[in-house]
């Protein structure tokens, strides 16, 4: 499929997953990501794959754990309340060093919240989410094309580092339609000698496990895992800068918020304001260096978030409080419009706080 097709973001994720060689999908219905399940229900039988509607998100993530144990590419998708239910399984995936792709099309919370777009699961996604010391690789697409690209990338990274990857998108990026091409060179997944595929009486048995009752063994495991995380931080950071080099005022935004903020920055530049944008694409590993560099020359960073201020904490840590970092946020499913953010930039340019 090299020509352009018009697709919803959720469908682009599903098609890209199939291109990446994923033949197993497990999910449970929840708005606003059900298109992924619907697409998989149609496509998987045609490509010899498995689509299974599980009895719960908990069961779905554990089915993912099962397939991943056998070394095959596998995914699940859900939205915020459902992702909370998956956290137990995600912690086990991390603890057993199993790759998998998990999509969270975020909606407003907490609790049942709403069904409109949100970014309020940033902490949950980037700081672990379940119990124990671990990270996910967290990818934040801002277009339908990126939904597809980051899905492929997500499978590659998960396999490379033996850890779960999360696509952290939202109701808008999932539902919006854009032209997308699926012109990808898909890498062959690495060998997985650790997988449980049956010993065939030719080797010692493999064990997939996250239990280490001896404290020193568990500590060793955790240290080892964080050595691997360090490699991810060194090698896999992705972000996009837009006119950030000479900017006085830098907007930091991700996903759909960055999409809107990009237009606001353009309009600010038209008005002669030196505004710029830094858009983290990997939320973990966070593009610390990009923000540290920006803090050397800009006057202010404004985090535009669809939550009560979560990514702003990572920005403050990355900039070591060298410049003021402020927040402009909407929550509950409300999206700011281009002129709203433009107003925030103009105000900042005048020296106002917000």
């Amino acid at each position, binding site marked *: 499929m090299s020509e352009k097709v018009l697709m919803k973001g959720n469908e682009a994720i599903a098609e890209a997953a199939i291109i990446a060689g994923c033949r*197993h999908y*497990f999910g449970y219905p929840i708005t606003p990501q059900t298109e992924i399940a619907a697409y998989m229900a149609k496509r998987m039988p045609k490509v010899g794959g*498995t689509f*299974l509607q*599980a*009895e*719960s998100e*908990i*069961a*779905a993530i*554990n*089915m*993912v*754990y*099962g*397939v*991943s*144990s*056998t070394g*095959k590419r*596998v995914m699940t998708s859900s939205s915020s309340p459902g992702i909370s239910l998956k956290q*137990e*399984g995600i912690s*086990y995936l991390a603890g*057993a060093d199993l790759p998998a792709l998990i999509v969270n099309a975020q909606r407003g919370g907490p609790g049942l919240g709403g069904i409109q777009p949100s970014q309020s699961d940033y902490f949950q996604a980037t700081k672990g989410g379940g119990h124990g010391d671990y990270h996910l690789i967290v990818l934040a697409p801002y277009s339908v094309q990126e939904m597809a690209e980051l899905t492929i990338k997500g499978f590659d990274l998960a396999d490379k580092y033996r850890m779960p990857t999360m696509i952290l998108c939202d109701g808008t990026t999932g539902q919006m339609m854009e032209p997308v091409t699926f012109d990808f060179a898909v890498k062959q997944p690495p060998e997985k000698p650790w997988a*449980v*595929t*049956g*010993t*065939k*009486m*030719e080797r010692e*048995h*493999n*064990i*997939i*496990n*996250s*239990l280490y009752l001896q404290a020193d063994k568990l500590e060793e495991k955790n240290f080892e895992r964080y050595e691997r995380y360090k490699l991810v931080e060194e090698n896999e950071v992705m972000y996009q800068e837009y006119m950030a080099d000479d900017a006085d005022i830098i907007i930091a935004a991700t996903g759909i918020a960055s999409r809107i903020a990009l237009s606001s920055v353009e309009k600010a530049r038209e008005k002669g304001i030196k505004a710029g944008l830094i858009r983290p694409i990997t939320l973990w590993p966070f593009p610390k260096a990009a923000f540290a560099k920006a803090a050397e020359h800009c006057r202010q960073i404004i985090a535009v978030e669809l939550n009560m201020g979560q990514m702003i904490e990572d920005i403050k840590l990355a900039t070591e409080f060298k410049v003021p970092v402020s927040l402009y946020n909407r929550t509950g499913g409300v999206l700011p419009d281009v002129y709203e953010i433009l107003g925030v930039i103009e105000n900042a340019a005048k020296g106002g706080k917000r």
Partner: protein
Amino acid sequence: MVVFERPHALCDVPLHYCPGCPHGIVHRLVAEVIDELGIEGRTIGIAPVGCSVMAYDYFNCDMVEAAHGRAPAVATGIKRSDPENHIVFTYQGDGDLASIGMAETVHAAARNENITVVFINNAIYGMTGGQMAPTSLPGQVTQTSPYGRDVKTAGYPIKVCEMLSQLDGPEYIERVAVCDVPNVNKAKKAIRKAFQNQIDGKGFSLIEVVSACPTNWGMTPKEALEWVKSDMIPYYPLGVYKDRSGKEETK
């Protein structure tokens, strides 16, 4: 001439189970069946959370340790990953299967997932030190029912075989015991059938093994086996509850 040896499917390691615990017997039965059917090389076992959590160190086939109660979901994934080749069994206790994992159990059965479930019912949480289980008997004293299980507040025990046999999905449901030699032999026959069903593509088979926990019941091993006969089996009658292909239903 060798008259008795360790099944190949059982690792040559000391088991951690308490003296008098029937887990060793049931492990052996499962391993003997795997040997006899010649399926060790394509079998993947799933250990639960509970006393048998470390079953992954005891079976020679590939093993996966699942989150508490989620073994049937993990088994579903492993089976679906390669349905033609993988032989998948779960080994679960009563807290794992009938309390926290009830949804996974019921739905795997309803889907007639082509897996084998070995369910150990000893009416107590062993690993955590003897708390009330979903299968603890009315009046049974445990750490969390110190005055005896009061059905007015703690409800009634769950009879898993009776419940699952109401579903259209599962292929084979049988309850056995390992309290004496004749019953151990019957248990082996049932476990063998549960694996054979999977090889034949027939679907979900669950064998409930009425077991004992001398340590947490506060009994000697001999007393515990007597209690199985006097108290457990009358509440949990043995027999075939569902056998779709065989059409025999004794209960």
